């Protein structure tokens, strides 16, 4: 117990220390040192009314510091992370440990860039390879190895990567899996400037990615698992492909304000735990078309992913670990408090869907537009699972394991609706421009069974309002109010939050979420929150106290569970 207090005290003083001392720019000869620091700590109080369990150490904290040295084309950096006793939501994802798991050296000139160590990278839209980080989610799948980027001619871009993917704080030693890949892109507009001047855009690209993981274990499984039969079968270790290859081709064409983008990816047979060890190849198609002119924009996208979960290790099943690729969730992302837990999570093995967004500005100085114009945003998205018709062998065996699994008609929407969102947002500034108002309505349908593992569908109407009033040049008030009306899941909720800001340094807010429609009387609870933040240039210190509802946090279609909690928190971020 004492240990954790000491730990918190040390981290706290360090964070203040870095906030105060490590400011300004740091020059050594021609080189420059910079970096950033983040600290998140919390004191937990058990609260049975919201299901906040007693945690074994009440004080939790995690912190990191990034140091970056750069000198001309050379740069090097490292990150130290201390997540030994992390906040409980990160602990649940397994992001726990400490050490330097990110370090690199990089040299770059106009022809070549060479990186050794850890790096983040993305090929095209990431359908075959995407190494990225998201600290909020506890996702960091950087590759440890080497990367080369070459620009042999303006408009031609080549990349090659080799690396072992990071898995939380686990050691890289003894790892037998790695990822390698190459990507090429040709941008005709840059090669032929005349084309660009006439407003034409044309780019093509392609890549090849291969994951290596030797299999040493046979897989024994039972046939007819739903009957009394005890017949079992086996996939011998040597029948698991060590090398799993994936490739993708992409293109972008545009003329003036119109543009289309497309990428198609395929992955060869990759029996793994997420796809029931089937040998069917995977595929993904991502298309988008946009048109934009002043005051009007429309974007339409289509995505289909079939058996495209691609990981460094075939037995990995944790929600965020060892992904080689990233099939994007293309729905519009909202930051509304009440529908946070109903954010769509991308389904790389089975999804087909569309997304349409229209932005329109009612012109300034018109009757409806007012002096400053009114912005309208309409959004529609709908995602289904794909249709799967089991192959004869899978039917005969009573299990898809070891077979080609299923066949699937390419453009057919499957029977299960996963997610739908119909929304309209109106953003208006009044003639007295100190008042601004954003009003939005959304109708959301969310498949609880497939996306969260408990029964049913959530259908809900959400009305949200965000009104801000600038009292003087520096003082402002903002009132956020939301109402989710639904008969499903936890029922209806209301939320209100008042924020007062004293620009540019102070933010104070009080908020409350009340789950008044919960079918269980004892769960009709208030989740209040008080917070105060001080911002000074690039340093932010925030204190908060209150309750967090058990839910799901999603950032860009990747989600993690957030346990219920009650307590006081401190967070510090700074860059120097």
């Amino acid at each position: 117990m004492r240990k954790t207090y000491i730990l918190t005290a040390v981290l706290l003083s360090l964070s203040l220390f870095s906030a105060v001392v490590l400011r300004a720019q740091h020059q050594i000869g021609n080189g420059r040192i910079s970096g950033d620091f983040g600290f998140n700590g919390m004191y937990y109080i058990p609260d049975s009314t919201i299901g906040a369990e007693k945690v074994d150490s009440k004080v939790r904290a995690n912190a990191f510091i990034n140091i970056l040295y750069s000198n001309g084309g050379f740069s090097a950096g490292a990150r130290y992370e201390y997540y030994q006793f992390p906040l409980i939501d990160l602990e649940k994802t397994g992001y726990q440990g400490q050490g330097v798991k990110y370090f690199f050296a990089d040299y770059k000139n106009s022809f070549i860039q060479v990186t050794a160590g850890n790096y983040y990278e993305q090929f095209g839209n990431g359908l075959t390879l995407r190494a990225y980080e998201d600290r909020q989610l506890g996702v960091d799948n950087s590759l440890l190895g080497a990367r080369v980027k070459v620009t042999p001619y303006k408009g031609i871009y080549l990349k090659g990567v080799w690396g072992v993917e990071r898995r939380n704080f686990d050691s890289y030693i003894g790892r037998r899996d790695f990822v390698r890949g190459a990507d090429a892109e040709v941008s005709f507009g840059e090669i032929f400037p005349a084309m660009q001047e006439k407003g034409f855009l044309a780019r093509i690209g392609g890549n090849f990615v291969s994951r290596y993981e030797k299999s040493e274990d046979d897989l024994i499984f039972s046939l007819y698992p739903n009957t009394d039969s005890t017949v079992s079968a086996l996939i011998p270790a040597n029948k698991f492909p060590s090398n799993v290859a994936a490739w993708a081709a992409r293109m972008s064409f545009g003329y003036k304000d119109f543009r289309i983008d497309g990428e198609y990816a395929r992955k060869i047979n990759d029996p793994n735990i997420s796809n029931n060890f089937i040998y069917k190849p995977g595929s993904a198609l991502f298309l988008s078309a946009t048109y934009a002119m002043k005051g009007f924009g429309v974007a339409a996208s289509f995505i289909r992913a079939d058996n495209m979960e691609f990981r460094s290790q075939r037995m990995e099943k944790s929600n965020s670990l060892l992904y080689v690729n990233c099939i994007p969730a293309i729905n519009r992302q909202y930051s509304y408090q009440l529908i946070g837990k109903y954010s769509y999570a991308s389904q790389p093995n089975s999804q087909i869907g569309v997304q349409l967004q229209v932005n329109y500005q009612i012109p300034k100085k018109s009757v409806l537009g007012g002096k400053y114009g009114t912005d309208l945003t309409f959004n529609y998205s709908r995602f289904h699972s794909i249709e799967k018709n089991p192959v004869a062998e899978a039917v005969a065996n009573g299990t898809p394991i070891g077979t080609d699994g299923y066949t699937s008609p390419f453009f057919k929407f499957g029977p299960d609706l996963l997610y739908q969102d119909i929304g309209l947002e109106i953003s208006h500034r009044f003639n007295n421009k100190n008042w601004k108002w954003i009003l939005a309505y959304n109708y959301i349908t969310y498949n609880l069974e497939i996306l969260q593992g408990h029964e049913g569908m959530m259908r809900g109407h959400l009305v949200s309002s965000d009104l801000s009033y600038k009292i003087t040049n520096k003082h402002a008030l903002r009132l956020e109010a939301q109402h989710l009306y639904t008969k499903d899941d936890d029922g209806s909720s209301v939320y209100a939050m008042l924020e007062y800001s004293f620009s540019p340094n102070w933010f104070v807010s009080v908020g409350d979420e009340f789950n008044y429609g919960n079918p269980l009387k004892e769960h009709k609870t208030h989740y209040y929150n008080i917070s105060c933040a001080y911002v000074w240039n690039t340093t932010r210190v925030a204190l908060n106290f209150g309750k967090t509802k058990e839910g799901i946090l999603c950032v860009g279609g990747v989600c993690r569970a957030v346990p219920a909690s009650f307590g006081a928190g401190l967070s510090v971020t700074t860059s120097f």
Partner: protein
Amino acid sequence: MKKAFLTLLVIACCASAFAQENKKKLSRLPEVDIQTLDGAVFNTKDIANDGKPVIVSLWATWCKPCIAELLAIADEYEDWVEETGVKLYAISIDDSKTSARVAPFVKGRGWEYTVLLDVNSDFKRAMNVNDVPYMCILNGEGEIVWQHTSYAPGAEEEVYEIIKSLSIK
């Protein structure tokens, strides 16, 4: 446990030692390849404005305070440009999930900013930015003279004062 504290302390001490070094030279933007809205490669060293001040904003279509900040500036932008010659680069950190919608979003709102895409957060990392919104101001020589994270209504006034003082010099 002890080892961890020690490591952390050593790192912090090293960093503070560097902090003692001279602070005369102002820093510049790191050189990172990002993209234009057309998908062409754009190196951040090319962020410039003929000796006039530059505002660089890191934002995303899903970030409400970022949009509030850019919206507040959009109302004044024409006047600012006329008075100070300032140019605003709005660098979106939207990734492939939402980056296709950046252009319709920006044009649909009638923003006159120069918009760039940092789809895998390479520039954000090189700038040591933790969270968006983040904004910095460069003087005519391309040196970073001011930076700030988060947005409170009215903060644009401070930005205006700074670019005004830069354009007078």
